[in-house]
């Protein structure tokens, strides 16, 4: 039997979303602005939008690029970050370069990358990869730096080689921090995906959104915002499930993502 209290806590995000929609509805009714449709009008467009195979193909293309970019970025960034965290030389080798790249908006590289790779999948996937890798590297770095020395010493004393110490001790110990980075990276992948498609209008969810904006189909614009927003929230919630399962042993951590760099 679930108590009333836990029920409310579980449903709180849902209630919050409903509350936001109600505020939107009231605001648009009060404003009477042609370019600001009400929440109900926008929601009514969603079924027809999602029923259109064209839209679904676009979304599938977007999600595929995002998945590939995210997966490759995670696969490369975690080892690099862990190495940087354990070796001062590696850290001081890569840190300045990463600091220089950090404030550059990755999606802004899109026009340049497009010149070399064309407007296709490769350019967009590369941009997503760049966007995801920095926070994952950074968090893996911080996580590996904070591993307790004593555990490494005992590992070494028991005859674990350096490589095995990395896999058996540093990786699990840094896992909570790494997953925090991956969570940031996931949201960032979605953001970069939308922006890259906005710049190279060829296919994808961002393409539909910004084309609708240019053509003045405001209900489609707002419907797409709802869909992309819901996608972000669902992906984040799904990742949170996985994260909790993987790091059940660690201290109960934040249930909301900490950083969005």
């Amino acid at each position, binding site marked *: 039997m679930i108590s009333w209290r836990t029920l409310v806590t579980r449903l*709180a*995000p849902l*209630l*919050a*979303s409903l*509350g*936001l929609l109600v505020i939107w509805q009231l605001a648009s009714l009060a404003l009477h*602005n042609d*370019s*600001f449709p009400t929440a109900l009008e926008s929601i009514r467009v969603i079924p027809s939008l999602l029923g259109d195979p064209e839209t679904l193909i676009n979304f599938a293309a977007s999600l595929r690029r995002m998945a590939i970019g995210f997966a490759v970025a995670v696969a490369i960034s975690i080892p690099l970050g862990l190495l940087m965290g354990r070796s*001062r*030389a590696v850290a*001081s*080798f*890569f*840190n*300045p*370069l990463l*600091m*220089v*790249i*950090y*404030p*550059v*908006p*990755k*999606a*802004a590289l899109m*026009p*340049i990358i497009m*010149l*070399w790779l064309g407007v296709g999948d490769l350019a967009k996937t590369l941009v997503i990869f760049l966007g995801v890798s920095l926070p994952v590297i950074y968090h893996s770095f911080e996580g590996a730096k904070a591993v307790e020395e004593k555990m490494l010493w005992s590992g070494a004393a028991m005859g674990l080689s350096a490589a095995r110490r990395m896999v058996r001790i540093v990786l699990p110990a840094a896992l909570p921090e790494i997953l925090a980075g991956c969570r940031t990276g996931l*949201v960032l992948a*979605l*953001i970069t995906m*939308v*922006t890259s498609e*906005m710049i190279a209008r060829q296919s994808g969810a*961002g393409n539909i*959104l*910004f084309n609708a*904006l240019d053509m003045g189909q*405001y209900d489609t*614009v*707002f419907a*797409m*915002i709802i869909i*992309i*927003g819901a996608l*972000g*929230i669902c992906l*984040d919630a799904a990742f949170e499930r996985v994260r909790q399962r993987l790091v059940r042993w660690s201290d109960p951590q*934040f*249930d*909301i*993502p*900490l*950083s*969005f*760099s």
Partner: protein
Amino acid sequence: MSARLVTSNVMLGFIPIALVIALWQALVSFGYAPVTLLPPPGRVFARMVQQLLTSTFQQEIVATLFRLFAGFAIAVVLGVTIGLAAAANPSVNALVRPLVRVLAPLPKVALYPALLLLVGFGHESKIALVAADALFPILLSTYYGASRVEQKLIWSAMAAGTPGREILFKVVLPAAAPSILTGCRIGLVISCIVVFLAEMITSTDGLGHVLVTAARTFQAVDMFVPLITISLLGLILNGMLEAVRSYLLRGFPEV
């Protein structure tokens, strides 16, 4: 760490940057990339210095910086206020928590069309987007910093007769300062990125607009200049924030 070690670390850090530039130059000079697509680094930097001296380019930088600072300032004020309130008051917390859970993972760039339609194409929509994106890291790190303040500090302040409101400003806020400043640092980098993106989407001035104009006319050299400028701006702002941080946290143990 000794001074010599620091310098050797700094030297080590320059190697990859030098390598990237060398690779860039090599790609051009060995003819792997046509000069129209990848201009040689020397020409890009010369063009950048030349641009930095012109008043039009300086105005673009000023426009970008204005939006960046305005959005960032709003985010800091709102983030710290809401974060502290949520940490101090359970009913505010119950309201803020689910809202943040829903709003934080939302890709804010997708909201930009809505902002454009609502507040127009001027400064406001860009500032609003910067504020919306920088808000959450600041809010969250304020919240965690404030809710982890040692209870004994608060008890001693209460025992000394400090009224509730003053405890918030004299005990909780300073104790949460390291965490808040970490959030601000993340927020600042995000502000740099977002202001540039917003200017790329629709704008008539700013660094993002410079990039888009150059891209439309296939001026590869001019495309690199705003990118390097925003990277340098990010580094400078980061350094300034670091200075503020070490001034504000001068009484704290080294973090």
